[in-house]
Every structure is written in structure tokens, then in C-alpha cells.
């Protein structure tokens, strides 16, 4: 009897292989196969959620040959299908299916469609691997595979120089994060002897932790480094805005809903570990808060519609990481759950706009699209509402409130940062909507923009429904694990509510007044436009330390090691050789004299004895 979780995991892999090897020729066939498999996965995950038998026997991947009782005999791929995993699977498959649907038209005339759909299926395979992973090894394996698929998808149009650079940058930054993640896993494995989540949880509940103090913090922060790399948190956030070089549906699937959420998902998975060490938790919280603030500030000054949304994703992820750091991982996961839907909606909306404006991404060249693309405008507006957390109606409100509650309870400075970020979010989203959709069309493309075709429209409407419904108790409780839906019973709830509504209104009004009927951006803060020059700092650092050090090492290797040692010894032997050469002048007499000298020496030596 086929085990459903394994089928769920291996279906996308099989599709990717089928498309690559068999359907390389026809784009259409590849597109339909990819979409079919995505909807198949959706069906599977829904059936698993509603209670189909979810047992999955572990697959022994690598025998370590250890025969100690307490050491793991082998590295196994065991699937963990608790409600957390299944709810995340639902999110992944819903967004995945809709993105496939959306791409049918968006990528219709792309020449390399088989490679695109193979990449999407490979991504779904790796993402499922992370979600269903039962131990840290398996999670690490699929962690890197997700990095690979994002590399392939960002670099889909690899003939474009910027896309090639962006994909390389994404992979390398992720790789740095994976380095930290692997070191963390090694520490945990070395100390606990196992990396299986259930076993770890049991060991933690037992109490006597083998890993304590500095090493525990180091271990947790190393694991967090993996999340920083994948969810683009502060030090390693530079790759996400550039990742917008990939096709928009890819950005919707990967860089909004699923892949970047994997980091948060992993943090939620190991939240019982984070709870052990307050210092580590606080650092995580502050990094999350910092990223949220930084990204929100940067978003206010972006002109490319996709970059605005990218920075907004960064800031929302910052929120979630902050929540995990404040030991409110339920709130973080709930926000992840709702955010996935409305951010995917916004991205697909942006995709529809770009598709209809002939790949025009600069919002200052759009304008007046509300009249020409009413449905897209409506769905985009609802998505924005969720993002800026319009109270009671949108899902975003409920999840953000939960985070703000926990922030207020845990640490006041972080709460005020979070509130200010909420204000900024409202500000830049309203700016986006006002500039892109309201007012007059600013370019020819914008004037003759036409409503999105039906498959796109269908995807947008589905996501809109989900973004609204996602926040309500009846829907969320059915999907989320028990206790993950916020109860809002904390004493300071009303105060927090009031603060968030004020920030919301302030942000919207300010942005509306500032940007209504403008031809170009009144505010022009260059540091914000250049991402606070962090990117340039990194390139400088890389050029100095890596390439500089490489040049020095190469020079050292060529001249000192090869030149001096080898060259030197060669020259030495040459010199010694030539000394002996002079001993043979060629004249017989010289040899005779030498022979005579030899005789003399011989006689002298023997006679004196």
C-alpha cells in the first residue's frame, strides 16, 4: 500500500525528472504535467489533513556503522506528519497549485518552459522535504535542495546578466547560512547523539541537558544562522531583493509564501530548544525586529513594484522571527500561515499588472490601472488590506495582533519598533496602491492595459478568498495545530489594538496625502534607495577579503612555493652540476696529471699509516 507522505514527497521529484528527460521538447505538455502534479499534491495534502492514514516508514539513507546503544545507527529520512507539518503542506501546495495555474498564461510564450516547470516541481519536492522532515539531517539535505531550486528558478532567464548574478548571489548567501546550519546540527548531534525532533524533545523534557551555557547558545544561534540565510534576515538579507530577477510567479511561490518561510518553519520546529536559552532567544528577537525595521524603511523608497513587495516580505519575516525570539512561536506560525496567502496574492497581482503592462515594473510608469484592471485592483487592494492589517476584516490583522500582543508582553522596545514597522507598512503599501492604481496612466502601456486573463483572475480570486478567510477562527482552527490560534485574552490587548489602529490610520493618511496625483516620487532619500549601502559594503568586503586574499594566496603559491622552493632546488642542483662539469676540460694531459696526483696522494696516505 503506497504510503501517502512518501507519495506526496516523491510525486514532484518524479514530475521534475519526467519533464526534464521526457518532455524537454514540448513546453505545453510540460506545463500541463507540472500543473497536474501540483494539483495532485494539493489533493494529497488535503486528504492527509482531513485524516487519511499518514504513517510513513523511515528510509535508512546512510548507515554510520556505529554499534553503540545511544548513538544513532544511521542517518534516516523519517517523515514527521503532525498538524504543524500538514498545515504548512497545505499552504505550500495551495500556493504552489495556484502559481502553476498562474504561470500557464504568464509564461505562455517563454521558450524554456520545460526547464521552468521542472524547476518548479523540483522546488515543491525540496520544500515538501523540509516540511515533512523528521530530523535535522533530512531538513539540511532539503534545505540545500531548496537553495538549488531557487538558484535555478531565479536564473531561469540566465542569458540576462542581472539574473545570472542574482541567482549566484542567492545561492552563495544561502550557502553561508547553510554553513551555520550544518555547524549547528553537528553541535547538536555531537552533544545529544541524535538529531531526531521527537528524540530531541524527549531528551529536553528529561532535563539533564548535555549542552549548556555558551555551547547551547552557540548551537541555537548556528541553527538560527540557517534560518537567517534562508529567510533573508538581517546580515544575509541582500539576496532577496535581487531574487526578483526571476519570473514573478516564482517570486510569488518562493520568495513570498514558501521558501523564505522555511526558515521560520524550522525555528518553530526547534522552538523547544530556543526556549532553553533566553540569551539566544533575545538575539533572535532583536535580529528579527531589526530586519523588520530595516526592510520597512527601505520599502518606502523602492520604485519597482516587485522590490517593494520583496522588502515587505523581508519585514514581515522579521516580524515572525521576532515572535519566535519572544517565545511566541504559535503567533509566528499563525502570521506565517496568513502571510503566505496575502503575500502570494500581492505578488500574483503584481504579476498580472506586469503581464498586462508588457513587463513594465516601475510603478511610476503605471497609474490609473484601477479603471482598466478592476478585478486585479480589487484583489490587490484586499491583499494590501490584509498586509497592513485592517482590523477584524482581514487575516493579517489577527496574526499581526497576536505578535504585537506577545511583543508588548515580552519587551517594550521591541513592541514600539513593531508598531512603527506597522505604520511604515501601511505607508509604503498605500503609496504603492495610490501610485500604481489610482491617478492618471503615466505611460502608453498603462493606457492600453487590459484585464488579466481568466486563469490569472481565477488564481487571484482564490487567494483573495483565502486571505480573508485565513484569519477567522473556524477556518484557522481547522487547519492550524491546537493552541496556535491567538486567544487575545491578555490584559493589554485593548491598548495594543488601539496603538495598531492608530499606526494604520497614520500610515495610510500620510501616504495618501503625499502621493495622490504625483508624477514622480517627492521623497528622495538615496541611502534608503541604495539599501543603506549594505550591498556595496558586502561587495567591497568580498573583493577585499576573498578576491584579495585569493590573489595573495595565488601569488604566494606561484612565486614563493613554486618559484622559490622548487625553482631554488632546481637552480641549486644546476650549480652543483656545473662545478663538476669544469672538471672535464677534455685534454688528456689534465687527466694524467690528475691521475698522477691521485697516485701521489695514495702513496702518501698508505705510507704514513
Amino acid at each position: 500500500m503506497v504510503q501517502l507522505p512518501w507519495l506526496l514527497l516523491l510525486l514532484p521529484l518524479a514530475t521534475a525528472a519526467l519533464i526534464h528527460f521526457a518532455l524537454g521538447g514540448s513546453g505545453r505538455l510540460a506545463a500541463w504535467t507540472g500543473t497536474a502534479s501540483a494539483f495532485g499534491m494539493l489533493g494529497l495534502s488535503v486528504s492527509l489533513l482531513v485524516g487519511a492514514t499518514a504513517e510513513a516508514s523511515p528510509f535508512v539513507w546512510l548507515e554510520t556503522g556505529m554499534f553503540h546503544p545511544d548513538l544513532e545507527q544511521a542517518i534516516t529520512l523519517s517523515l514527521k506528519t503532525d498538524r504543524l507539518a500538514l498545515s504548512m503542506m497545505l499552504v505550500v501546495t495551495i500556493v504552489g497549485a495556484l502559481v502553476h495555474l498562474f504561470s500557464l498564461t504568464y509564461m505562455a510564450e517563454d521558450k524554456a518552459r520545460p526547464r521552468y516547470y521542472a524547476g518548479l516541481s523540483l522546488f515543491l519536492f525540496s520544500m515538501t522535504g523540509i516540511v515533512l522532515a523528521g530530523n535535522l539531517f533530512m531538513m539540511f539535505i532539503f534545505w540545500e535542495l531548496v537553495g538549488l531550486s531557487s538558484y535555478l528558478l531565479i536564473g531561469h532567464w540566465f542569458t540576462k546578466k542581472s539574473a545570472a548574478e542574482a541567482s549566484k548571489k542567492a545561492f552563495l548567501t544561502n550557502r553561508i547560512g547553510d554553513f551555520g546550519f550544518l555547524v549547528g546540527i553537528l553541535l547538536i548531534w555531537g552533544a545529544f547523539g541524535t538529531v531526531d525532533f521527537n528524540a530531541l524533545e524527549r531528551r529536553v523534557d528529561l532535563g539533564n541537558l548535555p549542552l549548556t551555557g555558551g555551547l547551547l547558545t552557540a548551537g541555537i544561534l548556528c541553527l538560527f544562522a540557517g534560518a537567517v540565510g534562508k529567510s533573508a534576515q538581517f546580515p544575509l538579507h541582500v539576496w532577496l531583493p535581487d531574487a526578483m530577477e526571476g519570473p514573478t510567479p516564482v517570486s510569488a511561490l518562493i520568495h513570498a509564501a514558501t521558501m523564505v518561510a522555511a526558515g521560520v518553519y524550522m525555528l518553530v520546529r526547534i522552538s523547544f530548544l530556543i526556549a532553553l536559552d533566553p540569551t539566544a532567544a533575545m538575539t533572535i528577537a532583536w535580529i528579527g525586529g531589526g530586519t523588520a525595521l530595516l526592510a520597512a524603511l527601505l520599502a518606502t523608497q523602492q520604485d519597482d513594484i516587485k522590490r517593494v513587495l520583496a522588502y515587505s516580505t523581508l519585514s514581515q519575516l522579521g516580524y515572525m522571527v521576532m515572535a519566535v525570539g519572544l517565545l511566541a512561536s504559535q503567533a509566528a506560525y499563525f502570521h506565517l500561515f496568513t502571510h503566505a496567502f496575502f503575500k502570494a496574492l500581492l505578488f500574483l497581482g503584481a504579476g498580472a499588472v506586469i503581464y498586462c503592462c508588457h513587463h513594465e515594473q516601475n510603478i511610476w510608469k503605471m497609474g490609473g490601472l484601477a479603471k482598466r484592471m478592476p478585478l486585479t485592483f480589487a484583489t490587490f487592494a484586499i491583499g494590501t488590506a490584509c498586509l497592513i492589517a485592517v482590523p477584524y476584516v482581514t487575516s493579517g490583522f489577527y496574526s499581526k495582533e497576536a505578535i504585537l500582543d506577545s511583543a508588548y508582553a515580552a519587551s517594550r522596545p521591541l513592541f514600539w519598533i513593531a508598531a512603527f514597522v506597522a505604520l511604515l507598512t501601511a505607508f509604503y503599501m498605500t503609496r504603492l496602491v495610490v501610485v500604481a492604481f489610482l491617478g492618471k496612466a503615466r505611460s502608453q502601456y498603462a493606457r492600453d492595459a487590459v484585464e488579466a486573463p481568466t486563469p490569472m483572475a481565477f488564481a487571484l480570486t482564490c487567494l483573495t478568498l483565502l486571505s480573508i478567510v485565513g484569519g477567522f477562527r473556524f477556518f484557522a482552527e481547522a487547519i492550524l495545530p491546537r493552541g496556535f490560534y491567538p486567544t487575545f485574552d491578555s490584559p493589554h490587548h485593548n491598548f495594543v489594538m488601539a496603538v495598531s489602529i492608530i499606526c494604520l490610520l497614520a500610515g495610510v493618511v500620510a501616504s495618501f496625502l503625499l502621493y495622490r496625483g504625483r508624477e514622480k516620487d517627492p521623497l528622495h532619500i538615496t541611502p534608503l534607495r541604495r539599501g543603506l549601502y549594505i550591498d556595496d559594503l558586502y561587495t567591497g568586503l568580498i573583493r577585499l577579503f576573498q578576491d584579495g586574499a585569493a590573489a595573495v594566496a595565488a601569488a604566494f603559491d606561484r612565486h614563493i612555493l613554486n618559484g622559490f622552493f622548487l625553482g631554488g632546488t632546481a637552480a641549486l642542483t644546476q650549480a652543483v652540476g656545473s662545478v663538476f662539469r669544469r672538471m672535464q676540460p677534455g685534454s688528456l694531459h689534465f687527466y694524467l696529471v690528475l691521475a698522477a696526483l691521485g697516485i701521489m696522494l695514495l702513496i702518501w696516505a698508505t705510507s704514513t699509516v
Partner: protein
Amino acid sequence: MTLEHYLIAAGILFCTGLFGMIVRRNILVIFMCLELILASATLTLVAFSRFRLTSGLPDIDAQMLVFFVITVAAAEVAVGLAIIVSLYRSTQSVHMEDLHTLKG
């Protein structure tokens, strides 16, 4: 006459041979001086053989050695001269200055 006389005579002969080899330029004369040196060596051998009697008679093994030295020297002269001939044919001269192709 004592052994010492014979040894000194052989020594003088050896030195003249050596002197000749170093001084003379003509390769054939050098070759002759070589023969001189060989003769002095055999003289010493025979002198010692006569001096050290084994069971009453001069030491026969020494004379055997001389006998073989002489035969080998004969063969050596033959081959040496053949080489000199072919050398002469290639370089048209027997003087030492022209023969330094085996320079190191």
C-alpha cells in the same frame, strides 16, 4: 744486488714513463711511455717474486701475474693502436690538442 736496487730502478723507469706521458704531445709516444710504466710494474713484480721464496723456489704466482699482465698488455696495445688509427682517420692528426671532443 739487493731488492732495493731493483725497486729504485723500476721506480725511475716508472717516473720516466709518467714524465713522458705528461710531456709528449704525440699520442703514440704517450702510448709507448705507457708501455714503459707497465714494464716497470712487471719488473717490481718479478723482483718481489724472486725475493720472497715459497718453499725454496721463487713465488710462481707472481710470475703467473706477470705472464697475464704481458698478454693483456699485448691485447691492449693492439686495440689501442686500432683506436688511434680510426682516430687519426677522423681527425687527420695525432696531436693531443685536437682531441677534446669528449669535453664535459
